[in-house]
């Protein structure tokens, strides 16, 4: 249970190998879906951490957009390296979450959710009006370079995909480790009983703040990857409230049982959306909404619960984050 190389480790490792191989075989549109899944999946991973603590944010498009714009702006000052850009986007959102966290750590339940929504809508309103940032048109993002080399054409996405997949792999493992650590176990403590947590000697607010910063970092990372993948940032497709809804959607779809599930859920989300959009453009939202309703009604623990239905073993495994 505490072994570093547990099932999740192997699952993620095999997953990484598979998608790295697939990367070279896939058609470009599928590769693009893969990239988007990793980006949105990362945000959902942040929401998973909060969700386990009993908190839901209806405004994580704030950090997603913030990270995306950070990448776009860093290019304006001449930073074209992908890794550097992604780091900047991630840190920028982490800092924002750190600052806002002093406030948000005091709120719970619907107030937490809505305060996040309010902040994301403020950013949306500002970006939509700021001429220097292209208002509602947004700004373009160039193909990044990788340690001095700038791949062209199809290679651009192949490289970005490899690169992102490896980082996502590391991040997912780190989050997995985090969830099984003492600090990670406090997510459950916060959700179940803050008074007891205080009387065990740890501040519930501090625990929430830490989680909030993690979720901000992850959302910023997702936004940065998205900016590079799409080659463009704008308020409507990155910061407007339905984006935040998408992230919560993915979290529900995946269930909060396992970090790997989040990326499977994200992929399922992107596939459903893309196919619905291509084959039934009139009713794609109907299909999305319908899927979500089915999940909420019949699979309350998300797609991940399917795996638990299949292999009913548990009970003897005591870890809250298997």
């Amino acid at each position, binding site marked *: *249970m*505490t072994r570093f190389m547990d099932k999740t480790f192997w699952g993620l490792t095999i997953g990484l190998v598979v998608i790295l191989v697939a990367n070279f075989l896939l058609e470009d549109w599928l590769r693009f879906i893969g990239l988007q899944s990793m980006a949105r999946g990362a945000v959902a991973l942040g929401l998973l951490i909060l969700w386990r603590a009993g908190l839901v944010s209806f405004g994580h498009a704030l950090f997603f957009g913030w990270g995306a714009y950070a990448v776009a702006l860093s290019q304006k000052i001449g930073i074209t390296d992908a890794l550097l850009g992604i780091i900047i986007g991630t840190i920028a959102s982490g800092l924002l979450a750190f600052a806002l966290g002093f406030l948000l750590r005091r709120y719970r339940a619907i107030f937490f959710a809505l305060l996040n929504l309010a902040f994301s809508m403020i950013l949306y309103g500002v970006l939509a009006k700021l001429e220097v940032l292209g208002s509602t048109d947004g700004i373009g993002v160039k193909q990044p370079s990788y340690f001095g080399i700038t791949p062209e054409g199809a290679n651009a996405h192949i490289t970005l995909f490899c690169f992102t997949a490896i980082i996502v792999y590391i991040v997912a493992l780190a989050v997995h*480790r*985090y969830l*099984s*650590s*003492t*600090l*990670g*176990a*406090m997510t*459950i*403590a916060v*959700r*179940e*009983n803050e*008074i*007891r*947590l*205080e*009387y*065990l*000697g*740890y*501040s519930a607010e501090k625990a929430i703040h830490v989680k909030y910063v993690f979720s901000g970092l992850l959302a910023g990372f997702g936004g940065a990857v998205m900016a590079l993948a799409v080659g463009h940032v704008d308020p409507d497709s990155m910061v407007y409230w339905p984006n935040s809804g998408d992230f919560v959607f993915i979290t529900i779809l995946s269930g909060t049982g396992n970090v790997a599930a989040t990326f499977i859920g994200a992929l399922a989300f992107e596939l459903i959306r893309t196919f619905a959009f291509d084959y039934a453009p009139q009713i794609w939202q109907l299909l999305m909404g319908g899927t979500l309703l089915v999940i909420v009604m019949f699979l309350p623990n998300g797609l991940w619960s399917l795996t638990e239905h299949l292999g009913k073993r548990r*009970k*003897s495994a*005591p*870890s*809250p984050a298997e």
Partner: protein
Amino acid sequence: MARVLEVHDLEKSFGGVVAARDINVTIDEGETIGIIGANGAGKTTFVNMVTGYLRPSAGRIEFMGRSILGMAPRRITTLGLCRSFQVPQVFGSETVFENVMIAMGIAESRGPALLAPLFAPARAARAETHMARYQIADYRDVAADALPQGVRKLLDIAMATVRKPKLVMLDEPTSGISVEEKFGLMDIIMAALREEETTVLFIEHDMEIVERYVSRVLAFYQGEIICDAPPAEALEDPRVKEFVVGQELHRSTHGAEETGNA
């Protein structure tokens, strides 16, 4: 004997209600103290103030020779003053083992160590020992929400004592427990705490239990301590007889039907 807790002139009022007035208490190492008093007498408020949940309106509180007034519960906890609750405060969805593990993990880790795995084998072994001491090991894999009331009380106290505190305050450890089970429960608790050499203060309504376990009684009435003496003496005190014991007798005849379904 070393002084563990010293409380001077503590006051607390909620709006018009005076929940504590003129409270002066000292507790020495190794004592076992029972607090008695009718409902609403201010017993829980006293524990809440000493453990930092409520800020007194006035007064001084010293624990192991240093002032803990105004400190948050988590600070006071880390200094070695812990508590359990009238209504057990546990992580309901988690099993007994997980509850104890989380409690131990938090008690044992600071800073970067918090990022180490919670379920380390060495800690798991300590948790098993701790559960055995409180005789809750049989319920190891049962979610706290599904526990019988007595076991949940024990779990609450077990979680409060993972730090091996200097002083532990138990708020009505036997409330909601049937009369037949009370002594068994108290035996387990007191044996475990003696083994850990913890100084104990507990709130109790049952005078038989008080007589059997405590070395000193504090009787509360309307926010004041009306008697501070060894049990034999305290239970004979006319004011205690009138305001506490009398009310308790009244209460227990009344509460008979209620405990029946517990």
